[in-house]
């Protein structure tokens, strides 16, 4: 039994994968609590896909239509794409007074279409696109683990420092304004944190699946807890544990690693949803 659990992690690439997955789990599990309690899952999905044109633009700028793209440029492009998606949704919402899901969906399809158009200008991007969509956790180098740890630390410290403004704008932006919170700047900061979590997450589980880590663990935690601090702790724990457990599933059943991590997180949600007493 012990060898089943530990032997896979003797390989260096599996150790890096596990470490990166745990860090991404803590990050997404924590930031995702704000997504779930604000009811902005579609916005998170939109940001996750909004990184695509940023990635494609970074590839075009650093590698031209062929050649090797610069990894750091890809991360910066992804971050810019994610923030642009969130800011664009907010701008459409403010200028048109459309429903929030409509404004978000408009920006979502625009960024996705723009991404596909830019990708069509890049030769041989199909393989990179697969890793973009489904992640490449088994080939995370040391420097990327360190970068993930650094970005996760920055996001968590920001969440700690701005906890009250973030909770107040999530509770009711009008009440937040009357309590002296700069509502629009606070919401923008929250969007940037979401974009950073998405960018860090997509390198591990991919853009398509990062939403799973942002939603499933906080949703499971919401079923078990009544208060935000405990919800964040439980969510981070579930998301972090999903990493190594998903990698074990991937190793033993020879299936995709990123998707296995997300499936473990979703399984945790399903088990909790079924077993918890109905209130």
């Amino acid at each position, binding site marked *: 039994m012990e060898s089943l659990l530990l032997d896979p992690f003797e390989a260096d690439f599996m150790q890096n994968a596990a470490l990166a997955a745990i860090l991404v789990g803590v990050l997404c599990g924590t930031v995702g*609590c704000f997504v*779930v*309690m*604000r*009811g902005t899952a579609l916005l998170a999905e939109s940001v996750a896909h909004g990184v695509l044109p940023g990635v494609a633009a970074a590839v075009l700028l650093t590698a031209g239509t062929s050649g090797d793209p610069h990894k750091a440029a890809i991360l910066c492009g992804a971050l810019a794409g994610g923030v642009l998606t969130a800011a664009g949704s907010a701008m459409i919402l403010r200028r048109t*007074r459309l429903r929030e899901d409509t404004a978000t969906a408009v920006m979502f399809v625009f960024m996705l279409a723009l991404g596909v158009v830019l990708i069509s200008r890049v030769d041989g991007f199909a393989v990179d696109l697969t890793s973009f969509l489904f992640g490449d956790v088994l080939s995370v180098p040391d420097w990327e683990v360190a970068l993930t740890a650094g970005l996760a630390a920055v996001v968590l410290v920001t969440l700690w*420092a*701005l*906890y*009250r*403004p973030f*909770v*107040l704008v*999530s*509770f*009711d*932006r*009008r*009440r937040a*304004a*009357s*309590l*002296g*919170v700069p*509502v629009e700047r606070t919401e923008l900061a929250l969007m940037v944190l979401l974009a950073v979590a998405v960018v860090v997450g997509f390198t591990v589980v991919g853009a398509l699946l990062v939403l799973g880590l942002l939603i499933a663990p906080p949703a499971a935690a*919401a079923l078990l*807890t*009544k*208060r*935000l601090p*405990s*919800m964040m702790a439980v969510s981070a724990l579930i998301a972090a544990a999903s990493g190594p457990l998903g990698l074990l599933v991937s190793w033993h059943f020879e299936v995709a690693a990123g998707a296995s991590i997300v499936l473990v997180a979703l399984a945790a949600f399903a088990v909790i949803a079924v077993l918890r007493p109905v*209130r």
Partner: protein
Amino acid sequence: MSTILTARDLTVRYGDVVALEAVDVEVPRGTSIAVLGPNGSGKSTLFAAAVGLNTPVAGEITLGTDRIAYLPQQVAVEPMFPATVRDVVAMGRWGALGWRQRLSDRDRELVAQAMHALAVDHLAVRRLGELSGGQRQRALLAQVAAQDAELLLLDEPFTGVDRPTEETVRTLIGTWRDEGRTVMVATHDLARAARDYDLILALNRRLIAFGPAAETCTEEVLAATFAGHVARVGGLLIETEHRHPGAG
């Protein structure tokens, strides 16, 4: 008597819709004011402008205090929002604290007093989303009470509450006023407005009248405020349904 809220030529638009137009008013400190008007007459917009939630296209609104408490008309909290009633009430103290400063003994006392005044102490560990509409409104009013504000803006606080809660809130408004606070309440209850408040502020996008009930609760003022949508039933003035499109 000093002024706690001053609007000068205040004009607010939502797109092409004029919500408030050239409103001039000076609200004296330490009074209770019923803000009357039909749906869409600009009552909520006036409160939102006071807390900086909308930007006037002309004119200005200034406050004589930074201790403001505002209860919006409808607070649509996610049912699974992870906060107990005590957490929600304590949020009322956060505005007076720094972003990381812990609640002092005085803050905890204000939270406890507010929960007791609104009779939500027995709901302290329940999640807000688990409460009935009336219980939720009491918890939100307790959050407002915990703010210990000088100016309280309550947008239709009696909506969805039962009769005992309504009486509790009326008593509380009287207490706040007696303590020297200024309480502005948006309401449709014409009879209560005339009886329970020091001043009436009648709005219909423009300021129709502002002053004591004896001067403002005339049939002419109410007809102008409600654009003819007021009926006299026995001794009571009743507002009938009327709404401007788009305005808040």
